[in-house]
């Protein structure tokens, strides 16, 4: 299916979306947490367990060869998705969190020392904040948090001022999970490289919504999760420059990542196998490869244009509602609309909306620095995927009116 055939046609690819919740059509607007899965991804996962359930790169039998081919194919799909130059620059992990933690250990512990600085932003998801807090604690380094302005955009002026030869790493979200802000990562990378710092981009919210080209961005690390990209849970990937991976030690050791093993010492395989100890998540990787094929067929440029238009529509529709205050109004935003309603707590609104079949997220979205910046405990977050359209925003607005009736707000 393609975008031009309309979201109703795309919705038919996702069996979960045909459900009814409390008697209403499911309007799923919690895609920043996880997306629903198209039938082809579900089928591929089942196919893995029914047709090529074997260990990867081990068995010489037919199922083993199929398994290895499927796993290698999935890695090639990730390389294509990120436009990476080499396939061995792609390492599979359990998810984006695991990938970022890996970089903090395998690269951070080697290259960040006392007096050095690591830069993150106030927009970060906890998964791109806590690993760096911990790294700085371990290494006696300083963590600097780039502030955001009242619209939820990064203060590039502050960032540029803070960069110095002490800055060893900049870790920043491509797209904010709490506000939808698209950060100017290309510019940030250019500035960071000017002082010799490396840059990790957390692409968890970006890869499903826009084309990504790690070479054009010139980034050093790029991490994302499969389950937010219409793929299975428990699989994610890291892109890292070949020369960086070559110098990084394994964090986990065990089967599948060695060259020679002796009783006292062993030599390790080269990247990416060196970083993938143990039996890999083949069903996850295959499903992810299939999900990448799916978004490629729909077209990431078309998805991005659709998403951007939907965010603009949702902002307009919500801003017209009494008592609604948008949280985060960045010029460039994708996927997310965050707001609060006077007199109705996000948690209560979430319950009312659920009764109307509308699934949104109420809470701090694992971004407590953002909540603190806007002096709120929580927001309501509607987040979009390729199968959402204006009718879903209409359902959200209708549910909001019902909530006002319940609470007299």
């Amino acid at each position, binding site marked *: 299916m393609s975008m031009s055939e309309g979201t109703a046609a795309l919705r038919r690819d996702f069996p979960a979306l045909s459900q009814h919740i409390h008697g209403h059509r499911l309007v799923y607007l919690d895609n920043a947490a996880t997306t629903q899965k198209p039938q082809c991804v579900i089928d591929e996962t089942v196919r893995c367990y029914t047709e090529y359930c074997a260990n990867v790169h081990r068995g010489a039998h037919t199922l083993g060869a199929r398994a290895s081919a499927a796993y290698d194919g999935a890695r090639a799909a990730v390389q294509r998705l990120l436009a990476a130059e080499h396939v061995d620059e792609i390492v599979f992990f359990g998810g984006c969190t695991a990938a970022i933690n890996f970089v903090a250990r395998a690269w951070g512990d080697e290259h960040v020392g006392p007096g050095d600085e690591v830069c993150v932003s106030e927009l970060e998801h906890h998964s791109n904040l806590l690993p760096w807090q911990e790294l700085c604690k371990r290494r006696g380094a300083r963590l600097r948090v780039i502030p955001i302005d009242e619209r939820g955009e990064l203060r590039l002026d502050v960032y540029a001022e803070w960069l110095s030869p002490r800055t060893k790493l900049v870790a920043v979200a491509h797209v904010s999970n709490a506000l939808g802000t698209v950060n100017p990562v290309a510019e940030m990378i250019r500035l960071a490289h000017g002082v010799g710092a490396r840059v990790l981009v957390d692409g968890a919210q970006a890869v499903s919504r826009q084309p990504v080209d790690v070479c054009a961005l010139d980034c050093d690390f790029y991490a994302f999760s499969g389950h937010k990209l219409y793929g299975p849970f428990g699989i994610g990937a890291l892109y890292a420059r070949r020369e960086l991976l070559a110098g990084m030690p394994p964090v986990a050791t065990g089967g599948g990542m060695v060259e020679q093993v002796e009783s006292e010492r062993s030599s390790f395989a080269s990247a990416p196998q060196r970083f993938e100890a143990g039996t890999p998540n083949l069903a996850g990787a295959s499903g992810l490869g299939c999900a990448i094929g799916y978004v490629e067929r729909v077209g990431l440029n078309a998805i991005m244009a659709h998403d951007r238009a939907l965010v603009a529509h949702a902002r307009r529709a919500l801003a017209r509602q009494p008592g609604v205050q948008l949280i985060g109004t960045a010029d460039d935003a994708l996927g997310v609309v965050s707001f609060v309603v006077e007199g109705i707590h996000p*948690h209560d609104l979430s319950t009312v909306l659920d009764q109307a079949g509308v699934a949104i997220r109420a809470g701090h979205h694992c971004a407590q620095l953002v909540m603190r910046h806007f002096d709120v*405990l929580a927001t309501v977050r509607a987040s979009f995927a390729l199968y959402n359209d204006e009718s879903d925003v209409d359902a959200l607005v209708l549910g909001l009116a*019902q909530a006002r009736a319940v609470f007299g707000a």
Partner: protein
Amino acid sequence: MSELTQLYQESILDHHRRPRNPGCLPDATHSSEGHNPLCGDRVTITARVADARVLGVCCEARGCALCRASGSMLTEAVLGLTLSEVSDLAARFCAAVGAPGARTPATSVEPSDSEQARLGPLLALAEVRNFPSRIRCATLSWDVLRAALGIG
């Protein structure tokens, strides 16, 4: 809308809009603070206890309607009770709202007539047992109260 009007009964909305005994008790002997990491709700309870009896209690709740109403109703329910009576009521309340691990077995069935009588106005909150993601909203203030008073 019927499940919603069951959940957000008039007495709950009333306590939410006009919480009883808000703020902090000036001559408190006991206090505790707690929060729900899922939604960020924060509850502070201050109490004055003498001779193992609650002589005064205030609840400051920053959170959703259920959290605020529960904290407000709690302050009326436990005033004048002995610590062991508070402990008993807290356990009964948590069981009635379906809290996992409540001392009295949690059930999805309605509390019995005698249990309803014991719970009194608190019974209005029992409907949250049908909204599992909201149970914690109703029990947070009771957990904070138990921590403040040092009772199980």
